[in-house]
């Protein structure tokens, strides 16, 4: 009895036709006024999945990976092109809230309408109505027309009806973010109680914390196929790592696109300010206001950049990997000594880390006309977040030659779920 399969999905493929210009009327169809061209989108590709009685399954994956399509196929809102789906048991779905609500009717009347759409008879609603009203926390407002409700009240009422069914199989799509924190807690408790009563639950959510808390098994989907499935915490960790990596790659791509298109923009700026900046031959020099850049400019920072592990210019770093801060300088007037420095600030401008060549006991009394200083880091230990970079060059007496605070923002993505700013290598020992 325990291992019985209640939802069996076998080799299911679902495609959607995406028409470029679909005929929507008989006239157009007959007269062929619009082309019938379409491209096929595979929402699910030959997917198989068995769900056993009493299991709580979480479906995760980025938008458009087919999670919601799968739920809709299970409830029979959509039908598969190929393959079969067999369901043993009564399905209740929490996919749409407030179905059939009529604004002019009272909350109580709408409970009856809404519940009837979920397939409940009047008698069944009669038995549950008090509990539904209590759960909704609406009190005497229940006798007011729904149009007078705030959106929060509306959602609470809708959710109360939906969740007060007695489901054998419950499908939940992205709706656990209803109401205030207390209400959410109540909903989660309700779902826990369904679990204890042996209901089978399939849940789609972007809130991975919730999924990890309530699911026995997690299925990670991508492009209509199952990537991996298994224990909730394990799959979610893998998924987070994958998403972080993808995020970094995507940001890197965006950064490159912006900086390459940005060059063009800056060139235009330079034309208008030609008389001021005619002595600088480089194009890329960013402009900073006086409160973030100061100094005599006897040594000038022409550019600074962050390089990732592959040596590519970036504004996003993966924690745990090496990176490098490069500072290009130009010598305008020789000094007795030079100190190069760099620092990292949090988004709210708290210093995280600062270092310079003097702290490292490097004595620099001669530099080239032009050159690059590199600050190489073997391993980025920052936790996820946005940080600010500052770069500076000062003379031996710490007189600012060129000091740029908040030169640029950069993002760090870390798989470490710890809080704070830094990863500290550690292990726990429980005595």
């Amino acid at each position: 009895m325990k291992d019985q399969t209640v939802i069996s999905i076998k080799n299911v493929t679902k495609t959607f036709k995406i028409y470029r210009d679909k005929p929507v009327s008989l006239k157009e169809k007959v007269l062929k006024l619009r082309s019938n061209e379409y491209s096929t989108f595979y929402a699910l590709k030959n997917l198989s999945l068995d769900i056993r009685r009493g299991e709580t399954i979480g479906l995760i994956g980025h938008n458009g990976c087919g999670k919601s399509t799968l739920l809709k196929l299970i409830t029979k809102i959509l039908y598969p092109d190929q393959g079969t789906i067999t369901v043993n048991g009564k399905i209740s779905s929490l996919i749409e809230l407030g179905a059939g609500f009529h604004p002019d009717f009272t909350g109580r009347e709408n409970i009856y309408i809404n519940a009837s759409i979920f397939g409940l008879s009047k008698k069944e609603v009669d038995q549950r109505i008090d509990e539904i009203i209590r759960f909704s926390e609406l009190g005497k407002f229940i006798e007011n027309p729904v149009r007078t409700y705030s959106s929060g009240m509306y959602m609470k009422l809708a959710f109360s009806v939906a969740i007060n069914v007695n489901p054998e199989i419950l499908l939940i799509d992205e709706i656990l973010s209803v109401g205030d924190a207390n209400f959410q807690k109540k909903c989660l408790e309700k779902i826990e109680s369904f679990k204890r009563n042996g209901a089978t639950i399939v849940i789609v959510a972007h809130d991975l914390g919730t999924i990890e808390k309530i699911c026995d098994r997690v299925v990670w989907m991508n492009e209509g196929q199952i990537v991996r499935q298994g224990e909730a915490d394990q799959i979610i960790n893998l998924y987070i790592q994958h998403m972080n990596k993808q995020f970094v790659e995507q940001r890197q791509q965006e950064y490159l696109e912006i900086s390459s298109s940005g060059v063009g923009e800056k060139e235009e700026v330079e034309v208008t300010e030609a008389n001021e900046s005619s002595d600088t031959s480089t194009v890329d020099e960013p402009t900073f206001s006086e409160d973030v850049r100061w100094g005599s400019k006897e040594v000038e920072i022409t550019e600074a950049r962050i390089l990732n592990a592959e040596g590519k210019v970036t504004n996003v770093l993966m924690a745990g990997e090496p990176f490098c801060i490069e500072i290009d300088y130009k010598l305008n007037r020789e000094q007795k000594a030079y100190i190069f420095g760099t620092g990292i600030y949090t988004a709210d401008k708290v210093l995280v880390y600062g270092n310079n060549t003097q702290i490292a006991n490097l004595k620099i009394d001669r530099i080239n006309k032009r050159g690059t200083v590199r600050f190489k880091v073997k391993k980025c230990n920052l936790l996820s977040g946005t940080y600010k970079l500052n770069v500076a060059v000062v003379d031996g007496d710490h007189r600012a030659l060129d000091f740029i605070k908040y030169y640029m923002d950069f993002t760090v993505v870390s798989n470490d779920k710890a809080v704070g700013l830094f990863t500290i290598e550690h292990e726990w020992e429980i005595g």
Partner: protein
Amino acid sequence: MINRIEEVWAYRGMLVSIVKRDLRSRYKGSFLGFLWTFVNPLLQLVVYSIVFPYILKVTQENYAMFLFIALLPWIFFTSSLQGATTSIVAGSNLVKKIYFPRIILPLAAVSTNLMNYIYGLSIVFAALLITGVHLTVNVLWLPVVLLIEFIFIFGLALIFSSLYVKYRDLEHIVNVLTFVWFYLTPIVFPITIFPEQIGEMVGYNPMVPIIESFRDILLNGTPPDWNRLLYSLIIGVIVLIVGVLLFEKCEKTFAEEL
């Protein structure tokens, strides 16, 4: 098939509450409220019973009742078709998000108008008494005639509602169709007005025996012409079967087409 019927039966609560909601919401918040259900047919009755006897010189005895008895089932027919045709699209937020037997939506549209007809009957009976028409035992055939009309309407409703999801200009076609159909059915005039040959053709219109049966049992006090009514029933059942098959074929893609 049996499963499907059982399933619809299981969802009867939904049918009832949608019909109730639609009946009540139509007039909710308006000044005369539920009375509007009666005002509309009454106004039509007044207009027609002035225009035809006095302006067009129709010499039908008790013309007001002659017209009214036929007009109400006709309003049931046309407003059901118009309501049902758009029912799936109007309920698209339900269709896209929740599973329920889709057939509930057109069924509810037709049922809402059936209820309106039944409320209208109270005016019919009151008016019959006032105009001194003797009701006979044949009035008891009324549910049978109404059932036959319902079958025919529901069949058409299924065809139009499932096609409308794909072809959104069907609504206008249905309007034109019912407009023409109105004059091919003896509602404002007796069928004898047609020349013999055309009258014979018009006789194939399945609405003719239905409308005439209403007149037979309510106005003339005679039983309906069973042979001709059977013809309407057969056509009705054929249309219903076609409708159910077509609807079943189309409903699987409703959620995608909307």
